[in-house]
């Protein structure tokens, strides 16, 4: 984790309210692991914004993030021009472990929880792991990275309104995946709860979102109750990825 400047190489809309931004930086490329995030300074906002790393291209030193317009900060991010040097702290937080015993993996992502899973899907695929990905979106227009996922994973698309793929919730499709050694999930809290419940017998890792102050572990803004000695974890430092069995939802 360092404070660095990252050059904006592209910043374009890829789905409904959803943007993909490519940034250049050697250090982050070398250090980043799936599940980690960048803590991005957007001019004229008090606080930085945490955005997951969606993929890295080591050869070209490119880092890709995918973000959705959620409020004023992400809206301002859409106006940032190519060539701008973005002030970033990263890579921050914990990552999805890549256990060598895992031969077959299940990824379950919802909305802006999908991006870090793409990074994980690629990492698993490169190690020869068989990957199943269940990806949930609100509607067909919001779907992104379907093709990219299909290159590295057996991919199921779910939309809330049924305009694409299965209509319903990501958990509806979990029974379709016959076998896997571990699961990795990221998405809104209600989804994570449902996934954890549905997969309670399995080894799995969940990635959480919370409003952050510092993003580096000093301010105690982002705690989550845990079954550890301290009884909590900091999402920005100990997380965002936690072992499902250890967090109390």
């Amino acid at each position: 984790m360092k404070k660095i400047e990252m050059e904006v190489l592209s910043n374009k809309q890829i789905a409904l309210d959803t943007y993909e931004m490519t940034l250049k930086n050697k250090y982050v490329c070398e250090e980043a692991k799936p599940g980690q995030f960048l803590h991005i300074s957007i001019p004229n906002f008090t606080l930085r914004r945490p955005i997951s790393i969606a993929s890295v291209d080591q050869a070209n030193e490119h880092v890709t993030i995918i973000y959705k317009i959620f409020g004023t900060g992400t809206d301002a991010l859409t106006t940032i021009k190519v060539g701008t040097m973005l002030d970033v702290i990263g890579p921050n937080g914990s990552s999805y472990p890549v256990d060598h015993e895992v031969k077959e993996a299940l990824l379950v992502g919802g909305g802006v929880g999908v991006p870090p899973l793409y990074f994980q899907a690629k990492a698993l695929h490169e190690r020869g792991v068989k990957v199943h990905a269940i990806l949930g979106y609100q509607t067909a227009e919001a779907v992104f990275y379907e093709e990219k996922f299909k290159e590295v994973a057996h991919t199921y698309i779910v939309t809330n309104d049924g305009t694409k793929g299965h209509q319903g919730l990501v958990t509806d499709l979990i029974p379709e995946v016959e076998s896997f050694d571990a699961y990795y999930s990221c998405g809104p809290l209600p989804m994570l709860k449902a996934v954890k419940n549905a997969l309670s017998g399995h080894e799995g890792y969940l990635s959480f979102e919370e409003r952050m102050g510092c993003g580096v572990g000093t301010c105690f803004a982002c705690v989550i109750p845990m079954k550890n000695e301290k009884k909590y974890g900091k999402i920005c430092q100990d997380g965002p990825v936690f072992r499902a069995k250890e967090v109390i939802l």
Partner: protein
Amino acid sequence: MIDLSVQLPGLQLKNPIMPASGCFGFGREYAQFYDLSKLGAVMMKAATGEQRYGNPTPRVAETSSGMLNAIGLQNPGVDKIIEEEIPFLAQYDTEIIANVAGSTVEEYVEVTRKISAAQDVKAIELNISCPNVKEGGIQFGTDPQMAKEMTEAVKAVSQVPVYVKLSPNVTNIVDMAKAIEAGGADGLTMINTLTGMQIHLPSRRPLIANKTGGLSGPAIKPVAIRMIYEVSQAVNIPIIGMGGIETAEDVIEYLLAGASAVAVGTANFQNPFVCPEIIEALPATLEKYGYQSIQEVVGGAHPNE
């Protein structure tokens, strides 16, 4: 070279810049970014008698030029802090100020007794102004008589000088400061956060789980400057000023208002290097405005100066 050092009760500061309590944890994280020996001092996160888990989340919200927080004094408890955190900070050549909080006078006294005896703790910052806990904290900080009694009780057991942290959520800040001075405080730190709220439109509820939170950041700087200007002319103990400081110019504004040193809180979150950057910019900025030392700036805006 301009001498940046400042002498305050218990504190030999190599420069007047320190991170504010609660915005720097116990220093471990920011030590990854730079050498903490650069800092004049470090104000540690609040210590209470026992471990506290704090408030439910969300605990922070962003506001225009500021933020709200309601952490709720989460900390590992005074014993763990003495055992694990102070030794870490003591590795650095900087002064350690322990922030003490609690729910009762007894708890404040007990925490002070322990932590003021810890090696390397040079001063206590008595946090009687935390707006984010149900009991204790802010009541002590809004009633002059209670504040005076608290100060006396803590002073009676403290082995190091005691700085009392003032809440800005009062009608008359000068009365509070005078009562605390009469209670024997060695110094004041001010200001803590202004109590505020943000409502989340989609959920139609206060965004922060605790409902109210403390407002910090540049938004509150004019309130802090006003209060320091008033209080510094009414008391004879030094003030460590804070509230929205981001630049060396801000530091000079605080010193002119009457602070002897300053703390930087919220700005650390945006820029982890803000403290060392201010320290580096300070000599040239002092020179720009015609100063040769920190001391000559202090209180420079007062009518009699």
